Structure formats: structure tokens, C-alpha cells
């Protein structure tokens, strides 16, 4: 089970991850972080396929991913 962790304070609200996610399960929140940005949030963790495209996209290392148990490595990049 992939688990996506978005650090609210690292996020600058650029929305690139939202557009990068093939599952369209990320969205922008309504809260402002300490830097003054609306930050990205996971909307439907359950549908996450662990592709890491959001992680790779984020210019600010705001997204980490963990997995519980086995998962495919779609690509080693």
C-alpha cells in the first residue's frame, strides 16, 4: 500500500503534482501554510497506485512516499 505524505510547510502551492497524478487524487486545500500558500492535499489515498509521479514532479520535495508491504517498482529512475 503506497502512502503519500505531503508536507504542508514545504508545499508552495504550485499545483504541478495535482496535474501530474494519473489517478487525479491530489487536490489543493483551502488552508494557508506558514509561507502563505494554499497547499496540496491527498484526496483519495486508497486509489493511489504508487507511481511516484507526484513525488518526481514536486520541485520542492514536499511529497514523500512510503509503502507498506510489497509493491511493484514501476520504474527505477
Amino acid at each position: 500500500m503506497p502512502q503519500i505524505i505531503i508536507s504542508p510547510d514545504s508545499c508552495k502551492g504550485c499545483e504541478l503534482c495535482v496535474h501530474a497524478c494519473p489517478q487525479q487524487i491530489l487536490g489543493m486545500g483551502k488552508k494557508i501554510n506558514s509561507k502563505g500558500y494554499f497547499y496540496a492535499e491527498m484526496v483519495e489515498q486508497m486509489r493511489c497506485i504508487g507511481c511516484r509521479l507526484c513525488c518526481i514532479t514536486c520541485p520542492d520535495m514536499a511529497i514523500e512516499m512510503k509503502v507498506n508491504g510489497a509493491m511493484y517498482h514501476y520504474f527505477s529512475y
Partner: protein
Amino acid sequence: MQRDVIMAGFGGQGILLIGKMLAYAGMHEGMEVSWLPSYGPEMRGGTANCTVVISDKPVGSPVIRSPRAVVAMNLPSLEKFEPDIREGGLLLINSSLINRGAERDDLTVVEIPANEVASELGNPRGANMVALGAYLGATDAVPIDSVIEVIRETFAAKPAVIDVNIEALRKGYELGAAARQPEPVSA
């Protein structure tokens, strides 16, 4: 007699513009003026600010370390500039974006929900004008008509926005003027 004010906020809030308008109006009134922005490789998303000086004599230092007035449009600006204001000076807080009051008790504090006021007037981008109006109301640094004239000149190419901005300015003026009752601001 010298008026000076630091206006500060986020990058996109139109802070530099209202500072320029104030300076323009001062110039039209025959005063000596200077307008000085913060500059450089700002950490984008940080604060932008400008210092306006209006004086009946040639402006000495255009950099004001202890301003007579501060218009704080967001929290970082308030935090940065509140400590610097001259004793007895004016602190104008945009309470729409700042949910705390002043920390000092030796200032005249005017809290205006600039964004909300602007939105209510159907001009959500006009918060800066509300703030400028409030500053004028609280200080009469320059006659409001002079600023209205500057608005007309500034937006000559987009007449549509002239009236809404004048409206925002007037509304701000009222709020600012009201707030300075009963005791007039010394600044």
C-alpha cells in the same frame, strides 16, 4: 511638516501602486515627495514595501527607519514594521488578512478589513485602494480629491475601473476618518 509612511504587504497586493499614487498626489499639491520601493531578488512571495515621504521642504533621507505611519497589509509586514513606528505614530492593519491587533500600546491603531470591504463593493482587487483611503482618512496627508485626480490619470486608459477605485478609496477614507475619532492622530 513631513509625512512619511511605509506601506507593506504581499507582492501582488498593489502596495507599490498606492504608494506611487500617494506620492503623485503630494506632488500635485506642490509638496516635495519621494517614493522608495524595497528592491532586489526578493524571496518571491515575501513582502513588498515602499516608503513615501511628503514634505514642504526638500526631502532629506528618503529612507525612514522610524516611520510616522505604517500600512500593514499582511502579517509578515506587521511583524516587520510595527516595532519601527515612531512613538505616537499610526499603524493601519488590514484585519482581513491579519488576525491579531497591534502589540504596542503607544500607537494610534486603525484596523480595516480592507479585502472584505473591497469585496463588498464588488471590487475584490481594490483592497489596496481601501487601505490608501483609510490612510488618508486617518491622516489627511494629502487631500482625497488630489488622490482621486491621480486615480483618473492612472487609469485613464481603463475608464471602467476608475469609479470602482474611487469608491473603494472613499469607503476607506470614511473608515479611516471614523477610526481617528475621538482623538486626532498626531502623525
